[in-house]
């Protein structure tokens, strides 16, 4: 890694120099002078939200934030590739990666929750010594109301309602490698009578649904929802909100699975073991749970806050209130896949075999 560090330091030096000049005039010595915090997260609006809300604050304190864009899965691959010396300080991980991150704690260091006042807005299970919640998404069915009316179909309630012949080839289902892939495979397994240890029934159901494609890039789903290529898609509600914003007459349906309604996917923030910017990293974790930022996130990306204050503020937004489940009781009744019972490698293998034959 020495070589790369040298190169980066060159770039960094230049950046710091220009920054230094910029700040010399205002001369506010910040708490994070010269600190570059590297954050591994998705690109797109995800990154943009952090850039508009958190980055200016951090820069005012003298530091800089760089992004390592990619899905949590590919960022895990980068982490392993770097052999312990993580190329970033803070990382967003999925609940589905719990075995990779939370069982052995090989990759992460303890966080300092005492320095995070925003944890007061979280539930107890949403933070511990190793991690803090960042957001949650509600995996749902996003359907085109006009098309459903046109075809004389009732609004969907369960996944099974999508197996209508009129919808054949007009559905988009998340690929297992996409962010919501594992959550939806798990949920569909439950819906079809299986469970985490037995996803076979879920895969059978997916086969029956006869999807147009298994999406891995949300932008494509929204494009296809809008162009009329797909009439319904299994996506997290945020994508449905974005499709609505893009002009499609779409609505979310939180699928009924047994006594549960809706599917809950949780995001977590962790600090990498090799990080040396511990203080800045903890600061970032706290800012991420700031109500103002979480609200921004929700409005732009349709991601549901974990900050309870932000959740209650969202209720005044007509579109989000309509499309998301914002009542704490409703949220509590969403299905949560228990990944401790899942063998993800096996899931991947079974998935590949199942979909490649279709």
């Amino acid at each position, binding site marked *: 890694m020495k070589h790369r560090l040298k190169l980066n330091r060159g770039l960094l030096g230049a950046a710091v120099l220009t920054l230094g000049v910029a700040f010399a005039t205002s001369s506010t010595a910040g708490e994070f002078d010269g600190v570059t915090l590297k954050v591994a997260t998705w690109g797109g609006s995800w990154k943009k939200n952090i850039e508009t809300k958190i980055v200016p604050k951090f820069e005012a304190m003298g530091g800089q934030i760089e992004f390592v864009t990619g899905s949590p*899965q*590919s960022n*895990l*691959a980068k982490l*392993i*590739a770097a052999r312990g010396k993580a190329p970033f300080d803070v990382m967003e991980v999925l609940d589905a990666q719990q075995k*990779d991150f939370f069982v052995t704690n090989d990759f992460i260091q303890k966080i300092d929750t005492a320095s995070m006042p925003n944890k007061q807005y979280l539930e107890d299970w949403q933070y511990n010594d190793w991690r803090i919640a960042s957001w949650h998404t509600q995996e749902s069915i996003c359907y085109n109301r006009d098309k459903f009316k046109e075809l004389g179909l009732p609004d969907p309630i369960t996944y099974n309602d999508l197996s209508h012949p009129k919808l054949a*080839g007009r559905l988009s289902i998340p*690929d297992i*490698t996409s962010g919501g892939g594992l959550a939806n495979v798990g949920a569909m397994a439950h819906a079809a009578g299986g469970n985490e240890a037995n996803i076979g029934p879920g895969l059978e159901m997916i086969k029956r649904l006869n*999807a*147009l*494609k*298994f*999406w*891995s*890039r949300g*932008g*494509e789903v929204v*494009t*296809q929802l809008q*162009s*009329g*290529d797909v009439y319904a898609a299994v996506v997290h509600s945020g994508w449905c909100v974005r499709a609505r914003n893009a002009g499609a007459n779409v609505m979310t349906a939180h699928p009924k699975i047994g006594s549960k309604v809706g599917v809950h996917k949780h995001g977590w923030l962790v600090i990498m073991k090799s990080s040396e910017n511990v203080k800045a990293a903890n600061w970032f974790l706290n800012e991420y749970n700031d109500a103002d930022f979480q609200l921004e996130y929700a409005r732009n990306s349709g991601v549901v806050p974990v900050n309870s204050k932000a959740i209650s503020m969202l209720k005044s937004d007509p579109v989000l209130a309509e499309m998301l489940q914002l009542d704490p009781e409703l949220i509590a009744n969403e299905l949560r896949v228990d990944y401790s019972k899942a063998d993800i*490698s096996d899931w*991947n293998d079974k998935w*590949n*075999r199942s*979909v*490649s034959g*279709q």
Partner: protein
Amino acid sequence: MNTRWDLILLPSFVIIGILIVASQFIFLEGSFYKDLGLGRTGTDLQLTNYIRFFTDSFYLNTLWITVKTSGLATIFTLLLGFPVAYLIARMRSRWSMLLLAGIVVATFVTIVIKVFGLIIIFSADGLINKVLMGIGIVETPYTIIGNQTGVVVGLMHFTLGFGVLLLYSVIQTIPRSYEEAAQIHGASRWRMHYRVLLPLSLPGLTVGALMIFNMSMGAFTSAALLGGGRVFTLPVLIQRTVMMEVKYSMAGTLSAVLLVTVLLINLFSIILIRRLRSARLVIA
């Protein structure tokens, strides 16, 4: 003149040679360890991964789809590319360079972006489907997203630019006078193409075809983005195995199979073409 041309070749040869041997050796060796996931591997050399590959119809089918889509992409790229290359090569006006520039520029736009254009073009309410359904060729909207056709189309977008440029330079090496001579002596356009142009460009065509085929065999973007998550080619599986499952030695095995397949097909084609060519000479 005693310039030692062979000596000036040496540095390049050593560099390329070392890079080939070092890189291939390491990953070939890695493929013989049992894969334990998350970047960990077993310590004993064994054939586990290979046995798994060759006893599993899923993997064998993946190999077949890879060869099939690459082969189809090669054929269609040549079919679309040759007339264009011929047109440009034989054009006497300045327009030819604009046509060539169009091809080159199209190659500069990555398929990562083009796929959005393709989605729109082939969308259910898009132009192509309106025309197809209007004439009555298809009843339900036709799509290339999420099937092997899409993968072939994606590969063609990736290789067509290179193909045209290569064929262009091949056709350039065939003096125009041969064709003119043939035509003056009464050969029809098609006969001229078939009896003069084709045999003359066959060696270059073979090289070009193999280049396009090899490029397709190693490309994963088209299959990953246009295959709709259900067309598994070896490159797609390799990318998933490394980036999503972090299984290096299994990925090594998949890569080794891909590599050997490509080399064998190259070898086989070259031998076949040599045979064909000598046969043709005998007939002539």
